């Protein structure tokens, strides 16, 4: 076990009896390999007991829950929590996760805003025919009641972007008790959020943070009724047949530009879709399909993205994500391998921007594909990496399938109608909208509440 740095941030597990400093602690290192925090890892036995306590816990009233989440929003954005000011928190996310600090700061504000609007957000998912309570007068004549599918909800979080933590508090709003397993790459945000929720009035047995090693991860899902799991294609496959798990897999978000639209008027939005938020999100654009010659767009994208400097993540001007050099090199090698047969406008050596302290910025990559069916357009990597392909009417919807978000720059309403109707496209944005646009009350990958809730008939004499 590594000896802890004396000033390392102490991140306890947040169990049903309060913060727990485990004997088994993981040194969380920053992108330069220096210990930055010490994360308590709990064993399956601890997970099991915590989830049992969550199951037994009382559920605060609906209005009380919404009030507490609103208070937590303010604390999350402004208070000193676990000894960290908001600025110190942002620095931790940035140094450890490699996320540009401006992204962390804007996400902190966005999470707070989403928490304040949580009631509005979950209400959007309630079927119009359903009421909240069994004793609503409408049920006397027979009515649907919107009820939880379980009581304990587990989240296996990822470390790519802090924004994902704006989603699961919706489960708390709906009356679930929630346990979050943080990623080693970004334990700060869920720790801060759970701490804020507890400070705002949620009990230790109502919302928990359970860091575990890889082998223990299953214990979390086993002890919960429903789970949300972030991961790659393997995770999606693994839970495909499990109705109790909602997998969040690759986003493979895309932009389509048809011949009746001049991409030059939308270059800002295209660049932003690729590299905004550090380019690490499932909602960042992985592929752009252009009706016509993709060359000029590639040239323009490459010119814009090549001008962005490589900076340490805590620099206010940083744009690209930063990783330990070894990780960055592995990603670069993987990209090089996958890019075989494509035309690199920005790629190869240009992807790595060494910062000088053992870390490297992952700079934008722009590759041109020679066909809409080229398999590379599905290769999503955790940095701004875009594949630009030609698109034809004959190719049709095929290459546009399997997209979390698709921004369509087109005046063709029939095409838009087909995109909206396509089952494997999650969200369709028409016009000058970045693929990473998200708003409270709009579904992300469907509404989370669609998964958490169901309707039940109640009829009373």
């Amino acid at each position, binding site marked *: 076990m590594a000896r802890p740095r004396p000033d390392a941030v102490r991140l306890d597990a947040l169990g049903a009896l309060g913060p727990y400093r485990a004997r088994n602690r993981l040194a969380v290192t920053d992108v330069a390999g220096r210990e930055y925090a010490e994360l308590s*890892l709990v064993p399956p*036995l601890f997970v099991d007991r915590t989830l049992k306590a969550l199951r037994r816990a009382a559920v605060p009233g609906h209005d009380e829950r919404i009030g507490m989440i609103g208070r937590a929003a303010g604390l999350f954005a402004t208070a000193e929590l676990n000894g960290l000011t908001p600025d110190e928190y942002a620095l931790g996310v940035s140094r450890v996760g490699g996320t540009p600090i401006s992204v962390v700061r804007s996400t902190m504000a966005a999470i707070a805003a989403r928490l304040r609007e949580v009631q509005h957000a979950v209400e959007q998912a309630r079927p119009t025919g359903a009421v909240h309570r069994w004793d609503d007068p409408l049920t006397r004549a027979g009515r649907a009641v919107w009820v939880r599918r379980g009581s304990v909800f587990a989240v296996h979080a990822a470390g790519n972007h802090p924004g994902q933590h704006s989603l699961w508090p919706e489960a708390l709003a709906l009356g679930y008790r929630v346990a979050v397993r943080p990623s080693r790459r970004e334990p700060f945000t869920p720790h801060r959020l759970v701490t804020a929720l507890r400070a705002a009035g949620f009990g230790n047995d109502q919302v928990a943070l359970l860091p575990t090693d*890889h082998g223990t991860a299953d214990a979390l899902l086993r002890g919960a009724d429903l789970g949300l799991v972030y*991961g*790659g294609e393997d995770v999606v496959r693994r839970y495909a047949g499990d109705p109790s798990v909602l997998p969040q897999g690759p986003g493979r978000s895309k932009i389509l530009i048809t011949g009746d639209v001049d991409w030059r008027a939308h270059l800002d939005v295209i660049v932003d879709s690729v590299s905004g938020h550090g380019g690490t999100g499932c909602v960042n654009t992985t592929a752009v399909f252009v009706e016509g010659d993709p060359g000029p767009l590639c040239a323009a994208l490459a010119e814009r993205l090549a001008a962005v400097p490589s900076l340490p993540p805590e620099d206010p001007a940083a744009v690209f994500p930063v990783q330990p050099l070894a990780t960055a090199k592995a990603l670069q090698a993987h990209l090089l391998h996958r890019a075989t047969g494509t035309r690199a406008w920005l790629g190869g050596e240009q992807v790595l921007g060494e910062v000088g302290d053992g870390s490297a910025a992952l700079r934008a990559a722009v590759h041109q594909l020679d066909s809409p069916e080229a398999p590379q357009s599905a290769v999503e*990597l955790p940095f701004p990496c875009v594949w630009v392909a030609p698109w034809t009417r004959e190719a049709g919807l095929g290459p546009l399938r399997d997209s979390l978000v698709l921004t369509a720059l087109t005046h063709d309403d029939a095409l838009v109608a087909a995109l909206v109707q396509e089952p494997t496209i999650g969200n369709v944005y028409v016009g000058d909208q970045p693929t990473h646009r998200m708003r409270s009350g709009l579904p992300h990958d469907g509404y989370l509440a669609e998964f958490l809730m169901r309707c039940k008939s109640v009829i009373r004499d």
Partner: protein
Amino acid sequence: MPQSALDVLDLPPGVRPEPDELIRAAMRWHFGPDTGSPFWLERAGSLPFDPLTDVRTHDDLTLFPDVTAELRDVPARDLIPRGYGSGPDVVGVFESGGTTGAPKRVVLLRDWLERMLHWSNLNLDAHGFPRGADWLGLVPTGPHIVGEYFRRSAATHGRQGFTLDLDPRWVKKLIAAGRRADADAYAEHIVDQAAFVLRTQDIGVLTITPPLLERLARREDLADLVNSRVRAIRWGGTQLDPDSRHLYKTEIFPDTVLCGNYGSTMILGFAGERPDLPEEAGCVFDPYSPYVTFRVVDPATRLPVGYGERGRVLVHHVSKAFFLPNNLERDLATRVEPPAGHAGDAVADIAPVTTFENETVIEGVY
């Protein structure tokens, strides 16, 4: 065979031989043409030194090569020292886990079993295990030596031993094949069988592996049964992490004695938890020195790490019944000072290497 060597190897169980004297006596026994085993007498020919003259001290054991892998193929009867005569009192032939390929075999002889039991029963007394209790064992059986030690411990320290079948090789095979659900079902089947015994018999001592203890504790009715009846739990076979151990001692089984064993087929027994340590000292294991000794080493150099540092566990077994020096176990441990006058090291915090996330996944943003 000079009489003195046999004397040293045959000391009464309560008397510990001086470590270097034991080594010299053991060299005369295991490499004496009339007393050594066919395996070692044959093997001696290819050693670049003479065990009879060059191995004088406990530290000299490191001259030997690690022959553990050869125990996969050698006929078991060739491991019995000839000095036991034509009718050696063989308790049984036992095998290692078989996790990495074919299992390794050892022969358990009666005199060593009795010696080991005497020592381990005293260790249980020191932890406050009640004498004369009925025992229940959820431990590997069949070719696994721990099952034999369970039966004999129950019979000598306790009264009746209740057993069930447990085949860890099948569980490992299921897990390796990704059949997690089948492995779970098998483990639950084991716990179901234990439940029948716990409900109907007056079990005072439970011997169990940590994964099964965890499953048992997960069922609240069984945890209540344990709390109402079982006075001591002896765990071993795999490791118990310090946080789970703390939870058992403070929250789950607060009034039950918890005592660990760190065992291995290749040492023909196990090391016992050191009693009376303060809670935060963790779980320290002392082997039955000088017969069984540990050294915590850097696996690259096989040289000892400093006290308090992590390394791999190197094990020597030196008794009349068996000789196996320099066996490098796969476990990592912290090196701890042994009790005064004992050769070798004590070990603590035995653990496999942990991984937090799958580092090889590259595609996708998560």
